[in-house]
Structures are given as structure tokens and as C-alpha cells.
């Protein structure tokens, strides 16, 4: 039987050296006794020093080294034996390291989790107090008392050196004290709780803690699961918790029951000034164009660029089509492709002046699939429509037309919420949240009709629709 004594400071490194030696000497786990920080015990069994193996003699999976480094700081007295027992199995079956179902590994992983959580809570709950007088080199001095569940000060101290490098500090725990002075970290034997001076900042912090709490959403369990009571005695803010919990319900009730008050006198004055014309800047056409340019800098596969509408900003009529086509996308202007030309021709015949209307599309980007070199039009989905709604809403907001002419299903869906039964609904004005909307078919529908007679008939109907529109906005 061998006994290996591990020191309180530098435990993990010492365990690693010892384990390496034992493994190299083929000592089975049953033949090792591990002792931590208790020299008396070692004499009891007549210690046989652990054999030393040079680095590189023993290889283990990398993940085990990290695991052992953490588990060594656990408070379980069996931790070293558990680690070595697993290591002993691991030397023949290295794949054990990724077997999350293995019971021994599961226990070790559980311990590792405890240690990591404990270390994390230490980074969260250590509270420094100002010791007042600065050191000789002008560095401010702070100290803290903390009681961790596991032996986590040593692995956690580097965190504090990275964070609080421009001041001197000390963290006292029952078993180890860490000191950081003049940029140097040192570890010492622990001490009983030192007498730290009161710190004025604690009161400010308490004020903050009391006021950031929302009494209308009391969830004590959510708090205690993350900030267990065992930490409360060293947290300056924790002394306010009982009061906050006790009064929360009454405070929430009070808020709910309080009658609305009259606004202060200044409110009316301020709001009046704020709502005066020209004070609250809305989107302008310029802003809109800039946004479009910004978004066009990035291309989206399968979509063209954003093509905004055009026409007078105070137009009485807004004409809304489906989406830019191949030609529109290349030119960056709406209604210039075949369907746009069709619209222009028929509109002229119907006495509708296109130049006086603001013409735009419900969806701003050309959606296509590539077939060879050709970009084939794809109908926008509901998702595309929703995505583009913001743009058309901005345009409607800016133009404020008296009538909106919606051509085709996509425009109908955008403006009225439904694309069903266009052929039945055409020719009538529907009231919507965007204003009155006149529905008709899309000119490309006419272009696609193969039968010449049907095409002529449909074109005539379309012309009639446009003539009614011309009359409505006249």
C-alpha cells in the first residue's frame, strides 16, 4: 500500500505528477491511499514515496487532463481515488472518455460540474471592500472574505488578476488566501474571517438592488436557485431580500389600485411643441432611398435589388403592381418591362395619366430562379409579402394617395389581406387600413392569355377598370 500526500496549495498539479508516476509504475488503484493536507495520516501507514515518471511517458486523452484539473478542487475526500480509478481503466480503453453513459465518468463529470459552478459563483459573489488608504505605489487596496463550497480559490484567482489588475486585493477563504500585490499573485494558508472595514459603496449598491427589483413579478424560487441562501451571509445586498419579498405584493397591489393621475402641466406644453408640424421627423423619400441603397449593397441569392416606386410625392393615385421584373431590376425603375408597357398603353387609352400617379410594387425585390443564364420570375410567397410590407407602408405614408389601384393577387394580399376571388372583386373599391383600394388584374395576366379573342376581351375589361379609376381620382 502506498500513500500519496497532496498539498493544499497546488493540489491539482501535485495529483497529476503523482498519478503519472503511479501509472508508469503500474500501481493499481486498490494499492494507493490518497491524503490531502494531513501530514499526520501519512506517518500512520508508513509512507512509500510515489514513483516519479518523466513527462511524456504516460499518455492520456486531453479531455481527461482538463477533467482532472477541475475534479481535484472538489470537496469530496474520495476525489483523488475516483480520478485514479477512472484513469486506470482509461489506459486500456481511451474511448471511455467520450462515453457519457459510463457511470464512473458520469460521477466525475458531475463533480466537475459542481466545481465549475462553484468557481463561477465565486467570480460572481466575491464582494471586495475598500481598505481605504492606498498603497505606497498609489494602487488602491481591496479585500474580500468568501466561503466557497469546494476548494476553488486557486483555480479562480487568475480570473481576478485579469480583471482587477490595477489594484491590490486579497481574497480570504477558510482554506486559502489569495493576495495580489503590485501585479504579483501569491497563495497562502487560509485564515479565519478577517475584520474588514465598512464600505460606503455597499449602501449605494443596496439602493440599486432594492430599486431594480420589480415587485410585480415576484419569483423567489428563480432567485434562490441561482443565488442559493448559503451565499447570502457574505453578500451586502442580501440583507434587503426579506423586506423586498415581504412588501412586494402590497406594492404591486398599490400600483394597480392607484387611480391614474392628472398629467403635470408641463406635459401638455411639451407634447404640443413636439407635435407641431415638422418637429417629429418621419421618414422622407431621401431616407427611404438611402435605406434601399444601403440594403442593395448586399445581394441576396435568388432576389434582385430593391426597386422603389416613382411618381409625384403628392399623387392622388398610387398604382401597386406585383414585384419588379427582370427589366425593372436591371434598370432600377418600376413598370418599365413588358407588363409596364402594357399598362402604359391601356392607361393612355383609358384616359389615365400615368405621370400623375405614383407607381410602385407590393414587393420590392425581383424574385427568380436561374435557368441557364435566364432569370425566371418566381411569385412572391406570403413571407416575401410580409417582409416587403414595411416598404409599401412607408411609401403610402409619404404619398397619402386618395385612391390605391391594386393590380393582381400580390397587391391585393398586401393591401386587403386576401388574394382570393380577384376576378369577382375587381372593379370595386374596398376600404382598408391603408385607405380605399380599387382591385383589378395584373397587366401580365393579359400578356399571358394565349387566345387572341380572350386577350382582346380582357384588355377591354382592364381598360374599363382603369377608366373608372381615372374618373374616381379626377
Amino acid at each position, binding site marked *: 500500500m502506498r500513500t500519496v500526500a497532496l498539498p493544499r496549495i497546488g493540489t491539482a498539479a501535485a495529483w497529476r505528477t503523482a498519478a503519472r508516476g503511479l501509472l508508469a509504475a503500474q500501481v493499481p488503484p486498490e494499492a494507493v491511499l490518497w491524503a490531502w493536507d494531513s501530514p499526520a495520516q501519512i506517518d500512520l501507514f508508513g509512507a512509500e514515496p510515489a514513483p516519479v515518471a518523466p513527462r511524456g511517458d504516460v499518455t492520456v486523452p486531453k479531455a481527461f487532463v482538463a477533467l482532472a484539473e477541475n475534479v481535484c478542487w472538489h470537496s469530496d475526500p474520495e476525489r483523488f481515488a475516483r480520478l485514479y480509478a477512472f484513469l486506470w481503466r482509461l489506459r486500456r480503453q481511451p474511448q471511455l472518455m*467520450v462515453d*457519457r*453513459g459510463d457511470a464512473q465518468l458520469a460521477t466525475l463529470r458531475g463533480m466537475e460540474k459542481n466545481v465549475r459552478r462553484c468557481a*463561477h459563483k465565486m467570480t*460572481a*459573489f466575491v*464582494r*471586495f471592500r475598500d481598505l481605504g488608504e492606498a498603497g505606497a505605489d498609489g494602487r*488602491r487596496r*481591496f479585500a*474580500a472574505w468568501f466561503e466557497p463550497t469546494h476548494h476553488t480559490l486557486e483555480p479562480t484567482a487568475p480570473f481576478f488578476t*485579469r*480583471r*482587477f*489588475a*490595477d*489594484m491590490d486585493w486579497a481574497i480570504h477563504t477558510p482554506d486559502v488566501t489569495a493576495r495580489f500585490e503590485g501585479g504579483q499573485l501569491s497563495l497562502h494558508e487560509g485564515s479565519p474571517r478577517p475584520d474588514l472595514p465598512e464600505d460606503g*459603496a*455597499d449602501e449605494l449598491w443596496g*439602493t*440599486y*438592488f*432594492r*430599486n*431594480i*427589483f*420589480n*415587485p*410585480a*413579478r415576484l*419569483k*423567489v*424560487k428563480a*432567485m434562490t436557485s*441561482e*443565488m442559493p441562501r448559503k451565499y447570502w451571509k457574505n453578500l451586502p*445586498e442580501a440583507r434587503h431580500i426579506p423586506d*423586498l419579498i415581504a412588501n412586494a405584493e402590497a406594492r404591486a397591489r398599490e*400600483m394597480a389600485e*392607484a387611480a*391614474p*393621475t392628472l*398629467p403635470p402641466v*408641463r*406635459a401638455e406644453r*411639451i*407634447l404640443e411643441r*413636439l*407635435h407641431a408640424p415638422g418637429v*417629429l*421627423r*418621419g*421618414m422622407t423619400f431621401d431616407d427611404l432611398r438611402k*435605406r434601399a441603397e*444601403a*440594403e442593395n449593397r448586399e445581394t441576396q441569392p435568388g432576389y434582385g435589388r430593391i426597386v422603389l416606386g416613382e411618381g409625384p410625392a403628392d399623387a392622388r393615385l398610387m398604382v401597386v403592381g406585383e414585384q419588379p421584373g427582370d427589366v425593372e431590376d436591371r434598370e432600377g425603375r418600376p413598370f418599365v418591362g413588358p407588363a409596364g408597357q402594357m399598362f402604359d398603353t391601356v392607361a393612355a387609352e383609358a384616359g389615365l395619366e400615368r405621370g400623375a400617379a405614383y407607381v410602385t410594387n407590393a414587393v420590392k425585390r425581383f424574385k427568380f430562379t436561374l435557368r441557364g443564364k435566364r432569370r425566371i420570375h418566381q411569385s412572391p410567397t406570403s413571407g416575401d409579402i410580409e417582409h416587403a410590407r*414595411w416598404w409599401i*407602408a*412607408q411609401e403610402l405614408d409619404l404619398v397619402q394617395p386618395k385612391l390605391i389601384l391594386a393590380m393582381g393577387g400580390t397587391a391585393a394580399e398586401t393591401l386587403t389581406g386576401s388574394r382570393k376571388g380577384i376576378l369577382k372583386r375587381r372593379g370595386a373599391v374596398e376600404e382598408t*387600413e391603408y385607405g380605399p383600394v380599387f382591385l383589378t388584374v395584373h397587366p401580365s395576366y393579359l400578356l399571358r392569355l394565349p387566345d387572341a379573342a380572350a386577350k382582346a376581351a380582357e384588355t377591354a375589361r382592364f381598360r374599363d377598370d382603369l377608366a373608372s379609376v381615372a374618373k374616381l381620382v379626377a
Partner: protein
Amino acid sequence: MPRTLQDKLAILSDAARYDASCASSGTSRRDSRDGKGLGSTEGSGICHAYAPDGRCISLLKILMTNFCIFDCAYCVNRVSSNTPRARFSPEEVVHLTTEFYRRNYIEGLFLSSGIIQTPDKTMEDMVRIARTLRLEENFRGYIHLKTIPDASPELIAEAGLYADRLSINVELPTDAAVKAYAPEKSPGQIRGAMADVKAQRRASKDRSHTGKRPAKFAPAGQSTQMIIGADGSNDATILGQSSGLYGAYGLRRVYYSAFSPIPDSSAKLPLVTPPLQREHRLYQADWLMRFYGFGVDEITGSRADGNLDLEIDPKLAWALAHREEFPLDVQRADKAMLLRVPGFGTKTVDRILATRRHRDLRYDDLRRMGAALKKARPFITLRDWSPGGTIDSADLRTRFAPPPEQLSLF
């Protein structure tokens, strides 16, 4: 009588509590080992305390001032409320941040503000605080700045150089609701501001032709928040909105904040108990969208009214509505389906995938891997486990839903 720092802190933290975000994670790594500065950030954030409302306190979350010229019905600081007002000087904010930081109370600063005078003036003061912290105090902790919607792009550009995260709240799930309850705010401008930040972030990642990297711009990204339960939007609308926001502006997080009673409330919005359970379900749904490969319509499709089931979690609700997909053979199923098993988290699934390469999984293995087997049991098969006919039993839902509660007469 002039207010003391203590009074101001009380007023201005009270006013800031309705912002849900307190995250301090996901920024670039920094430390002060050179001894010339204060603070560090290391990837994951730290919650330094928890308030009894269960929310983490990671940052010093305060308003620069709660004077405000806007009149948003849901907000305690609206111009028409009689709440006490105060204003920090930039020096006071800097002092509080560094002194709190030195005592390890906080990870950094989350600074927001009411709108005073003009948006530019407000933003300028906020940027000044961030600049002082970074350049004069050499503060290397976390800074989260709220951007003011109408502020000039130059100020936002400067803010992004000092702040780890920029955010702007969309406030309510639909534009109509914003119009109704926050008449001075414009959803278009809010989205415009988010698009600007996104564009700046992208620009900051392009190297110049010499390979030089520009200064980091808001390395922890941007987030937003919407209040739920104040207007009538259903969960499908809310989640649709947030998935659009994640997609369009590359947001790190969308926070949902249950509308909660405020002191001196407006007559426009009735006060109710905050819908905390709904908020919780929305967060679960949000996670399913981001980490589990669910689509919005899959999550909200199981109920006709487009709302989430408050009694059971959205993943379980989906599984119950799609029983034909189960039980699932854990040994063979692909990752996408494993992620859809109720009771399996992303970590559990990774462990299953790693271990099943070497050997057959058993029921007890799953327990050790961290699966919530009470929930998962009816939906899986293993070599030594079969759920029998439970997947088809009519009362499967009642096993998970909380027992019916008797209504109180009084």
C-alpha cells in the same frame, strides 16, 4: 433641494427596471493584465446577483435621466406621468460604474435614457459617458448602450466603438400597436436604426486592401425588446415578428417583457397581473426557433388561436400534435429529429451522438446524459425500453399538464 447621489440612483434604477436585458456575454475578450486599466470580459457573462423577481443583475442598469418628452402609454417615464424625475451628470455615471465594478458588484454598465431636448443631445451625452469610461478610466468591462432612434449616424458610429452592445426597442409586436401606444415613436425609424447598426457591424468586419482590420463595432451585437400582453397580438404574430427581426437585422436576442404594472399608470392601458407564464413560453419558443430548428408556424400551428399552450411547453405541444413521428429510435434517429424529442436538450443530443458511435445506448445512459426522461419516455425507443402504446393513449397530455385548478369563488 438638490437630490443626493443616493436619491438619484434610486429614481434612475427604478426607472430602468423594465428593460429585461442584462446580458454581458458574447463580446470580444479583453483583460487588464497590463496593469493600466480596469476590467475584463471573457465570453460568457456573469450574473453578480439576483433580485427577488428572479432576474439576474449583471450590469448597472440605469437611465441617464428619466425626463422624457415622449408619451408612451406603457412607460413609467412618459411625459404625462408624475413619477419623480432626476438626472445623472456624466461624471456620476462614470463614478458609480467604476466604483461598483471595483467591488465586483457588476460586469459593466447598461445605459439608457429618456429623451431630453433633442435625440442628438441625448445620444451625445450617452456617448460622452462611454467615451470617458473607455478612454479616461481605461474601463475594459462591458458597456451596453441604448440608441436613440432619431440620433445622427455619426453619434451611433461613435457609440459602437465604445459599446459592446447597442440596442433599440421595437417596444410592441405590431406597428399598429406602436402607433396607438407610443405615438411619438416611428417603427420605421426604429428598424432604420437597427439596419444602420447592422450595416456598420458588417463594414467593421471588412479588412482594408492592406489587410488592416477596422476598429471593432459593437462586438456583442444588437438586441431588442418587445412588451407582450399590452396589445392584443397573439403569439404567432409575436414570434413571426421576432423571427423576421432575427433574420433581417441579425439580432443576438429578442427579449420579451410581460407588460407589468407601473407606478402612476396611464388610463390608456389597463393594469393586469403580468402574463409571466406567457413570457416564459415565448422564450421557450424563441429557443426552439434558434437552436432546435423549428419554424414559427410549426410552433404556433397546433392551436387555432395562434397562441402557445400555457400549460405545456411548446416542444411537448408539437410532439403531442405530431405523434405519427414517434416513438423515435434513439440509436438510429438523425440529429434533427433527436432535437425534437421533448426532454432532450442540445447537450443531451450531442452526448447521444458521441456515445452511440461506440456502443448501444440504454435507458440509464440517457439519464446520465442529462435527458429529462419523465418527459422523453413516451416518445423514444431503446434496446431496453419501449413505451408500448403510450404514444397513442388519449390521456397522454394530461400526464404532463398541471392538474386542473379549482377556481376561487372570492
